[in-house]
Every structure is written in C-alpha cells, then in structure tokens.
C-alpha cells in the first residue's frame, strides 16, 4: 500500500510559545482554504507539521498553490508505505526517481522514531541506500554536499519517504500579527509592500485615493486588479476607495506648488489614520522607498510622517527599484502597475516638488486652512466607498449579465 502525501513544515511560528496552537490552527485553516479546489485532500496536523493526503488529487497544482501560503517554510512530496523492508526500499527508489532534474549525488538519512523497528537507523541507512544505488546507474553517494537528501522516517503508523524539499513563502500566517491599512496607489511599489506586510502576518485593508472625475475609470480598475492579486494571497481583501478630488483642489489653491505633494501625502495619512481607527487597524503600510521620488527623501518622509501617531511601516524603504520590480513580476502585479493611467497625483505634480520641505511652512499652511482642512478630511473619510474583492471577483454591476454571456 503506497499513498501520496504532502508534508508541510511550518515556519517561525513554531517558536511562539503558548499561542502556538492557535497560530497553527490558523495556518491549517488557511491551507485548507487555499486548497479548497481539491476536496478529496485529507489533513492531519502533528507537532509543528501538517500532513496532507492527496487521495487522488493532483500534486503539481496543489504544490503551486501551497508555495503562496504564508507561514509555510517548505514542504515535500512524501510517499507513505508500510514497514516491510522491501516495501521501504522500493518506495525510496520511487521517491528519488520523482526528483527533477535527476540528482547525481545523494545522501541517505533514515530516522527511526518507532523504536520497536527491528533494524536500527545505521543498518537501515545501509539497507535502503544500497538498494537505491544498485538500481540507479548514475547516482553516487555524497554525504557532505548531496544534490538530494533521501529521507526515510519510520513512524508507528507507517513509513514516510521523500527526496525533495520545496521552499514556500515563509513568514507568518495571515492575520497573526494583526491588521494594517495599506496605501495602494496604481504603481509598482505599493502592491509589493502589501505582499511583504501580508507575509509578515498582517491582515491588510487597502486604501486608494482617487480623483474621479479627473482620473478615469480605468485607473480605478487598475487598482481593483492589483488588489485582486493581493486577494489571491489573502483569500479576500477590502479596498477603500477615497474621494480625494476636493481636498486636492483645495490644497492646490493654496498656491504652494512645490509643497503640494507634501501636503497631499500628509492628508492621505490623516485620512488613512481615521480609516484605521474605524477598521481596527494598528499601522499604516506604504510603498515608500528611500530616495526614489521627491516625497521619499528623508526630509520629505520626516515632514510627511510627523503628525501620524500610528506606526508607519515601509517594507521597501531600503530596497532598490530593481529588486522591487523583480518581486512585482513574481506577484504578477507588475504588468498591471505599468499600465499608463493617470492617478490622483499626476494631475497636481509640480514642476519642482520640494525634496526638503520646511515643516514650519507646512504647518502654517495647514493651520491657515484650519477647520476647512479638517472638514475636507472628514468628508473624504465619510465618502469612502468600500468593496470586498476576492481573487476572481469583478467590481462592476453588469457582472450578472456578463456571467450569462460567457
């Protein structure tokens, strides 16, 4: 009797003390949700690990999906067989033949957790390893730096054999570290920042500022598409669409052209903070990367972030643009991000934005606006429209008709 299994290894959360059980359950739930398309799978949780019995479901697509579940460090395709030595030997051979590309060297590691087993680990290493060597012409043993480690784990209920380890996303299960608001523009950086935050166990709600009708419907669609990509990693995601036109127009009228971006960013953070309070979020995540644009100089960051009391998390702050693009490509957000639709800032981009804005002047302008500014901030918050997106959802009303047509 041979069965196909996947052995899933949990990551950093195994060190999380007395909350660990809860976090593991969280992760198991998320794995089940991610693999919901394969109903025949059977799950067995053990200490720090999860065994998934394939039960006839295909390994490859399930494995592809598993790679994107946060909190999983690695997993292996495992064949479970009985305790019969010949059976174990054949299974070991089968396991090493599944490895692609075919390894040239291997190391045999037998673990005998079931102490009643007649042969000890050393003997078993030899008994199984020799059989594999005999039957695999070009394979050699290399205990120092093998291409493949062939592992046999003898447990009371059966023997688990595997020869490959696939790396997964790592990080923490989604939501384990609480909730944050992500400022999601249509650009390349913010979706990447969102993904990095999610990988660290943060549940994300996205906030997008739009200047409709100055900006187009397509610009909004673009953000919806980006949020949907993040929803692939999170099951579903809330997207808050904030009407920013009036506030922006007001700020533009102050005549401080080179400070407009600074003023806009500060307002965005004020709005995001209010939304965070409503949504029970404890941080704001942005896609800022140091030095990339005028609003991301150290001087700008200082002035922009000044009066926000929530932690401002900037996962990309020390990264190069090329590294960020590489991740965006992997997340498949890049191709959407580079679509050439104007966003809320393009309309008001000054010819020479301040790279080192003066906090005193900024505060003075804001205090001159006074209650007006506060009113516009509140209006933006109250006018915010929230949509819940899943990976496949679409945002518009004709959806029902569309479904009928396809």
């Amino acid at each position, binding site marked *: 009797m041979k069965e196909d299994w996947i052995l899933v290894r949990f990551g950093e959360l195994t060190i999380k003390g007395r909350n660990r059980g809860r976090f593991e359950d969280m992760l198991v739930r998320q794995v089940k949700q991610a693999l919901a398309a394969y109903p025949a799978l059977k799950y067995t949780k053990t200490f720090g690990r999860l065994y998934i019995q394939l039960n006839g479901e295909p390994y490859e697509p399930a494995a592809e999906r598993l790679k994107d579940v946060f909190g999983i460090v690695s997993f292996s395709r495992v064949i479970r067989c009985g305790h019969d030595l010949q059976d174990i030997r054949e299974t070991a051979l089968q396991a090493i033949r599944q490895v692609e590309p075919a390894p040239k060297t291997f190391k045999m590691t037998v673990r005998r957790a079931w102490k009643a087993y007649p042969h000890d680990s050393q003997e078993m290493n030899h008994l199984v390893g020799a059989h594999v060597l005999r039957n695999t012409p070009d394979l050699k043993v290399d205990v120092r730096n093998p291409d493949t480690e062939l592992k046999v784990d003898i447990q009371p209920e059966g023997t688990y054999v595997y020869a490959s380890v696939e790396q997964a996303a790592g990080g923490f299960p989604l939501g384990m570290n609480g909730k944050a608001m992500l400022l999601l523009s249509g650009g390349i950086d913010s979706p990447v920042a969102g993904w990095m935050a999610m990988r660290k166990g943060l549940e994300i709600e996205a906030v997008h500022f739009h200047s409709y009708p100055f900006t*187009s*419907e*397509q610009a909004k*669609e673009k953000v919806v598409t980006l949020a949907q990509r993040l929803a692939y990693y999170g099951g579903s995601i809330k997207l808050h669409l904030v009407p920013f036109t009036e506030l922006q127009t007001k700020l533009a009228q102050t005549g401080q052209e080179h400070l407009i971006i600074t003023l806009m960013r500060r307002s965005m953070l004020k709005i995001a903070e209010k939304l965070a309070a409503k949504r029970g979020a404890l941080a704001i995540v942005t896609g800022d990367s140091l030095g990339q644009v005028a609003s991301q100089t150290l001087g700008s960051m200082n002035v922009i972030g000044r009066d926000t009391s929530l932690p401002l998390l900037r996962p990309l702050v020390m990264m190069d643009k090329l590294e960020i693009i590489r991740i965006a490509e992997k997340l498949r957000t890049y191709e959407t991000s580079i679509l050439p639709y104007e966003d809320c800032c393009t309309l008001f981009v000054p010819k020479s934005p301040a790279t080192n804005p003066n906090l005193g002047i900024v505060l003075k302008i804001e205090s001159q606006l006074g209650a007006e500014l506060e009113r516009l901030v509140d209006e933006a918050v109250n006018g915010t429209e929230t949509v819940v997106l899943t990976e496949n959802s*679409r945002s518009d009303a004709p959806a029902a*008709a*569309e479904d*009928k*047509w*396809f």
Partner: protein
Amino acid sequence: MDTLYFDHCASTPIHGRVAETVLEVMKIHFANAAALHRAGAEAMKLVDRARAGIAAGFRVKPDEVVFTSGGTESNNLALKGTIGSLARSAKHVIVSSVEHASVYRCAKQLEEQGVEVTWLPVDRYGSVRVEDVTAALRADTALVSVMHVNNETGTVQPIREIGEALARYPQVRFHVDGVQAIGKVPVRFREWGIDMYSASAHKFQGPKGVGFLLVREGLALAPLLAGGSQEAGVRGGTHNVPGIVGMAQAFRLATESMPERRERMFRLRRRLLELASTIPELVLNGYGAEEEEKTSPHVVNLSYPGMRPEVLVHMLEKHGVLVSTQSACSSKSLQPSRVLSSMGLGEDRASGSIRISFGDEHDERDIDTLGERLRMTVDKLKPLERSRG
C-alpha cells in the same frame, strides 16, 4: 417536407443562447472597446473576459489570443505575418497540398512574391506523412502549415507527431489551421509544439465574421492591415465586441461537452457509412468506421463516379437535404476537387464528390432520412450516368 441541413463544414447554425448574447451585447455595449471612457472600458472588459475564456480552453496565456475576422484572416495573418516579420534569409515555407483555399492561395501568393513553397503530398486518405515534413525542411525554412481537420474529407492530420518532429527545429514555426477542428477534435496547443492555431466562430455555432489566431508568446507577426494598435498592434481595427463575446460563449459550449458530442457524432457517422455502403454507386473518400481516430466525427465525403456533383446536390435539395460539393468556398468552380485529386483518386471520383457534414441538432432519424433520400436520388440519377471509361 422538412429541410435537413447537412452542411456544417460550411457553416453551423448559430447556438440559440449565443444568438441572444450577441444581440444583447450589441445593444448594450455599443461603445468602442478602445475608447477611454467608462463605456469603452466596459466593452474592453468583455473582450478581455472572452480572451481569458478562450485562452483557458487552450491552456495558454490571454496575450496569446489574437482576435480576427475569421479563419481566412487568421490563416493569412499566420502565413503572411510570419514572412513579413522575418529577414530575407528565411524564405521557404512548407504547406500541405490539401489545405483550405485561405492557406493554399495565400501560399500561392507568397510563391509569386518569391517565397519558395514545398507542397506536401498526402496518401490516399488525405494524410500528410511526418517523414515528408522533415524531409522538406531546409536551413531557410520559416514555416510549416498543416491543417488539423480537412474540410472536405474530415481527415485528421498527425499534428502532434509533426509538432514533435519540429521540436528540434525551433526556428521553424508550426501553423495549424484548426477551423474544422474546434469542438470536434482535441487540441493541445503547447504540448504538441504548435506555434499558431487558426479558428473561426461560425464553424462551432458562433457568429460569422469573427475568429482568432493563437500565437505563441514571443512570436513576432507583421500586421496585415496598417491601423490602430488593437490586439497588441498585430490586428488593428475596432473590436467586434458582440461577435467576440458570442464566440467565447460558443467556444465554451462546444469544447466543454466535446467528449459526449464526439461520441454521439461518431455514432451518426457510423450509421451514415452503413447506409451509404448499401448504395453501390457511392464510394467513400477518406477514413471509414474502422479508423475513426484518424477522422473528425462530423463529416463524410462520398463520390458518385461519373455523376456531376452539383446534379446530386440539386436533386438532394429537391428532396429536402442540403449538402455541398467539395468545400463551399470553391463549390462554384467546376474543377475536380483539389483535395481528392491530391489523394490520387482520379478525376472520376475527384469531380463527383459530395460532402455531408452534421452537428448537434441531428439524430439517428435524420441520418436515416438522409440515407433514404440518398438512395432515392441515386436511383433517379442512374440513367444519367456518364460512361465510366
């Protein structure tokens, strides 16, 4: 007397649901899909969804689907677009001698422009041999074009084998005209190493005037028409939004039920062959019931040697049965069928053939009726037989 329509190779009746869809989309989403405003964006979303649906059916990326006006354009784009995109050095193409006119004539045009063309022979069933393909390859070969299902005989070409043989020649593009194959014969675009695949909506119960060409990622094609940048610049021109949506729906309907439909059509085909075999004047062109895996289930080609086929067609029509002679596209010419001639069948058979093709609306009773009327027609025509020399 009901008229029985047995000319599905020429065009299929549009699926009722698809017709409704086309009408609705036409009424609601009239905006230009390339327009910047909301109405345009909505129309474009429908185009994208249609593209995603078709791409999923072939397990390719959405960007690999190029919408066209139909099979003829797809085929022209594949051949001329390939030649147009390449440097002067690679100017040899290999085309089977039984291709549809839209590939055949296109290759003839290229020949006039100085491209060298090797015409692949076929055996007496109309099959291309893989070894003939590899033997024809040269250092400057740019393209091999072989149809998937022949539109006159239903013969299925060994596409997979050709694709595998061509895998060792990555510079040679492999184009397959799949117009008659969609919904009737399985296609594995990537696994079989196909680079371009043509299709036309009205051959699988979709609307006329719309089709697509699958183009493997990374292949450059020169556009046939100078114009806008729709379809990544390969095929400018305003999107036929209702047609494209209708095509995607028809495509899904045709492909998702293919195994059962194939089985059913093969049953009908067997029955027709059985009935035809009792009429000694008629001979079958192409594969019989014993080699079904080499033929498409929806077409039967019969010859009445010594009889002009249009006489047969008109007489059958008088008896309420619509069939065609050779392919509809060339039915007005009185030349012997090029396909049957290539199969070495002699003028008597090649100039006396009718094509019977059927689809989902037919059942056993229709086939029996067809059989009776065939017999009746042949009996009436017998005295008119020309000498069989």
